[in-house]
């Protein structure tokens, strides 16, 4: 692969998207389609004692109401693995849990039918607020190395503080939806999912049919952000409805219900102690994180340490973590799931320590460069964080920033502040099997694992196929997110490009070699299609497979059966640690009377390894910054202590960033390949984009006002 920067190609699917031609799962039409609507539980916890469906069935157009009696209980999973989520059950674990599914000829009838279902409950006490947790903390073992207590005792400068990040919901613009179609004894599910393989397996398991009978189609997703990483509870219920009714059934879940039934980012309390020696070197870190979980939730509390224990090479680290169990649906991954909250806390703490030392926060971070992952002793493959910081500071115009807060003023008298924050994120990868067919008729077809949710995976794959093959780019079809075309793996954790691009490069190389063999030294004019036509070969098709560093054939097998096969979790490989890095610089303005916070400009410099698709990568980083600003200033999912569940369960009450909230966001890349991580040198960008930016904002607020705010979101009332 050449080391030239990739050209700034337009997003490959943009032309369809701007015309409204792109088909998301709920856009696919089916004759004879039935519409479904879920009936959500209206209590915080308890048992369903009766479901009266009579009135619902009397609504014209309603054809059936599914209740717990219509969905089989989950079969026991294979030894050691947790059971899949149940379908409809009488035990209500959280408000909004689906109790019944109304199926009707029209959407209007389904909605009216759902409202006509009468459910009686036996209530049980519940707790949904972090401060109301009714049981003690459950601890999880966490990374600990060196002797943090002893080092802290010898430290000459220390800071100690508690930070809080609150619950957040993903809210992709596309609503959760499932369309289930049974035909010829096979079940096909159309659903925007980041894990078509897992969805296939789980639905097969729940419906007690062989996984080979289930296909999942998820070629375009209207935003994922982790929400679509797990199989939603309703999916198999809709499939069961389609099975019982022998017609296609579609459910588009209302956003209010999605709040209760989707996963979310939990509330976390972060307690941090940092100590520096007389030379101003960080020698000790204590980091405790206590997160909200559900009663049976498996979302791990110890992974918040992944970044802080590696980023600055602190040699004495004591990590602790725990769960408080509450009565909501379980929390799970949401963009930069552990890294955004932990970076907010840790990068704020680093800023506090730098200030206590009288050091410039950029220079202080630069002084903590390291080549070693202190948590494992392994080599860091390509740590370009210092380049990110240096280049970002230059682009931002950081030089001359006064150390004292409250001294910068904008032209209109507004208090101004400049904050910096940094982040790391794993460079992970999964195996992939790709098929590539170049045809004499001008068509190229490529199929592999991956899901397109707006991050630009198709564009990245197209970049390397177009660079590596003399094909007609206009007639290149890239099939991903479809279990019928290639074994699929979940797309999350910023492993998308690192997993899909190296195998595409290998496919292009193998195709080139296959054509060369066919040509056998003959000179044949034209591009590959024309050459094939002249050789009277309708097509050449090749297959390639690839595993991540340290992986073997067993990982390919796991991929084929739809399992998880990730290498590089937390950046850890057998011989090294590979991470992406970023530095964010944020200018904050605080209006002196109203204390309204504005962010006129952000500069972000990322080291994500090789940049394959400059345009979509830039958009990813801008999007990550928009997410961080939303999380820092607006987003909070409030629980309802009276009735359970989430209180502000729509996007009029849950405030994501809108256009007027966003100013300039300048993005640039180090663009240095990491060939330890994979043959394409890619490290990943989707999540690192967000990491550290909320801290940069909070650090900027401190610089503007002298107020250190340690809880997100930071709102006007906290500055008055």
């Amino acid at each position, binding site marked *: 692969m050449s080391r030239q920067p990739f050209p700034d190609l*337009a*997003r490959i699917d*943009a*032309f*369809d*998207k*701007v*015309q*409204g*031609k*792109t*088909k*998301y799962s*709920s*856009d696919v*039409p089916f*004759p004879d389609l039935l*519409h479904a609507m879920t009936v959500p539980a209206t209590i915080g916890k308890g048992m369903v004692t009766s479901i009266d469906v009579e009135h619902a069935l009397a*609504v*014209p*157009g*309603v054809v059936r109401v599914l209740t717990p009696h219509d969905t089989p209980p989950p079969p026991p999973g294979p030894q050691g693995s947790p059971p899949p989520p149940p379908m409809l059950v009488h035990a209500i674990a959280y408000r909004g849990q689906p109790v019944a599914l109304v199926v009707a*000829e*029209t*959407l*209007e*009838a389904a909605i009216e039918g759902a409202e006509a279902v009468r459910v009686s409950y036996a209530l049980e006490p519940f707790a949904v607020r972090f401060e109301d947790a009714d049981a003690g903390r459950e601890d999880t073992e966490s990374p600990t190395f060196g002797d943090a207590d002893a080092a802290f005792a010898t430290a000459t400068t220390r800071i100690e503080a508690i930070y809080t990040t609150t619950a957040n919901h993903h*809210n*992709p*613009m*596309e*609503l959760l939806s499932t369309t289930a179609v049974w035909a010829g004894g096979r079940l096909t599910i159309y659903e925007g999912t980041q894990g078509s393989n897992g969805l296939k397996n789980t639905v097969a398991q729940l419906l007690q049919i062989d996984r080979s009978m289930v296909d999942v189609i998820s070629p*375009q997703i*209207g*935003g*994922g952000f982790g929400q679509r990483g797990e199989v939603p509870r309703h999916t198999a219920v809709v499939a069961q409805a389609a099975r019982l009714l022998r017609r296609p059934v579609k459910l*588009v879940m*209302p*956003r209010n219900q999605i709040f209760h039934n989707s996963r979310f980012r939990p509330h976390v309390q972060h307690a941090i102690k940092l100590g520096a020696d007389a030379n101003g070197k960080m020698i000790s870190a204590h980091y405790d994180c206590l997160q909200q979980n559900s009663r049976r939730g498996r979302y791990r509390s110890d992974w918040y340490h992944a970044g802080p224990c590696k980023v600055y090479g602190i040699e004495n680290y004591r990590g602790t973590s725990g769960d408080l169990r509450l009565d909501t649906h379980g929390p799970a991954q949401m963009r930069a799931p552990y890294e955004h909250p932990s970076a907010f806390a840790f990068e704020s703490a680093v800023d506090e320590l730098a200030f206590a030392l009288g050091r410039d926060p950029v220079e202080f971070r630069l002084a903590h460069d390291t080549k070693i992952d202190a948590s494992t002793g392994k080599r860091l493959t390509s740590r370009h964080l210092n380049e990110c910081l240096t280049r970002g500071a230059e682009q931002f115009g950081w030089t001359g920033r006064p150390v004292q807060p409250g001294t910068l003023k904008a032209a209109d008298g507004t208090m101004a502040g400049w904050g910096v924050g940094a982040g790391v994120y794993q460079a992970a990868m999964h195996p992939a099997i790709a098929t590539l067919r170049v045809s004499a008729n001008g068509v190229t077809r490529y199929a592999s694992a991956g899901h397109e949710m*707006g991050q*630009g995976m198709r564009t990245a794959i197209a970049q390397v196929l177009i660079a590596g093959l003399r094909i007609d780019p206009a007639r290149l079809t890239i099939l991903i997110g479809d279990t019928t075309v290639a074994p699929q793996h979940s797309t999350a954790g910023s492993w998308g490009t690192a997993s899909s691009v190296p195998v595409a490069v290998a496919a292009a190389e193998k195709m080139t070699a296959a054509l060369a063999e066919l040509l056998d030294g003959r000179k044949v004019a034209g591009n590959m299609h024309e050459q094939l036509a002249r050789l009277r070969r309708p097509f050449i098709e090749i297959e390639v497979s690839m595993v991540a560093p340290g992986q073997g054939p067993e990982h390919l097998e796991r991929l084929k059966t739809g399992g998880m096969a990730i290498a590089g979790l937390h950046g850890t490989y057998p011989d090294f640690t590979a991470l992406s890095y970023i530095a964010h610089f944020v200018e904050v303005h605080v209006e002196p009377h109203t204390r309204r916070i504005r962010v006129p400009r952000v500069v972000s410099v990322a080291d994500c390894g090789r940049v394959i698709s400059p*345009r*979509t990568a*830039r*958009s*990813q980083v*801008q*999007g990550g910054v*928009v*997410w961080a600003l939303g999380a820092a200033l607006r987003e909070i999912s409030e629980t309802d202590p009276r009735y359970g569940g989430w209180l502000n369960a*729509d*996007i*009029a009450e849950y405030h*994501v*960033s*809108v*256009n*007027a909230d*966003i100013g*300039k966001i300048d993005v640039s890349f180090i663009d240095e390949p990491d060939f330890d991580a994979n043959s394409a040198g890619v490290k990943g960008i989707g999540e690192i984009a967000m990491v550290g930016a909320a801290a940069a904002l909070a650090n900027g607020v401190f610089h503007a006002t002298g107020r250190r705010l340690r809880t997100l979101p930071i709102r006007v009332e906290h500055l008055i």
Partner: protein
Amino acid sequence: MTDSPECAAGGIAVTRRVVLGAGASAVAGPALLKGHHVHAQPVPTPSGIENPLLLSFTVNGSSLELDIDARASLLDVLRERLGLTGTKKGCDHGQCGACTVHIDGRTRLSCLTLAAKMNGRQLTTIEGLSDGDTLHPMQTAFVDHDALQCGYCTPGQIMSAVACVRQGYASSPESIRDFMSGNICRCGAYVGIVAAVAAANSSEG
């Protein structure tokens, strides 16, 4: 400009003809079409429609008649009955802008519009904005500035953006940001959206 409702079929010659074969009051038959519609792909009228209403309106330059459920929103009629799925449902509550369309030349949220109120109105959806494969300048600007990621909010963004330029609110980034703030983009493509609207505005200058 091809975006005014009056010529929203994008300049394609509309052959007027009456589709025969279904009575105007047929509830179980296909939607009755007047005129060769360029984009709508109606599905047969489902059974079980309560209080059916005969709706007659113009969609992307083609006149159209169909029996609808009196409770149906314009958004659901577009998506579920007319096969015009470019208009998106992001909230169904007037909170996100994904369902933005033009009714009689003005931006409207189709999720908050009762389909029954569309009688005699002119509707333009995202499908009616381009002229065949020739994109509307705003669509081109969205591609050029990568003003989208997942693309789900994009049809609504573009319908609002066209109005932003047409109504003279695209003169500065601040004004564009304010005008466009009813269209949420969770992917966070705002920087590109503002650049696209500004570029389309100056190219039409």
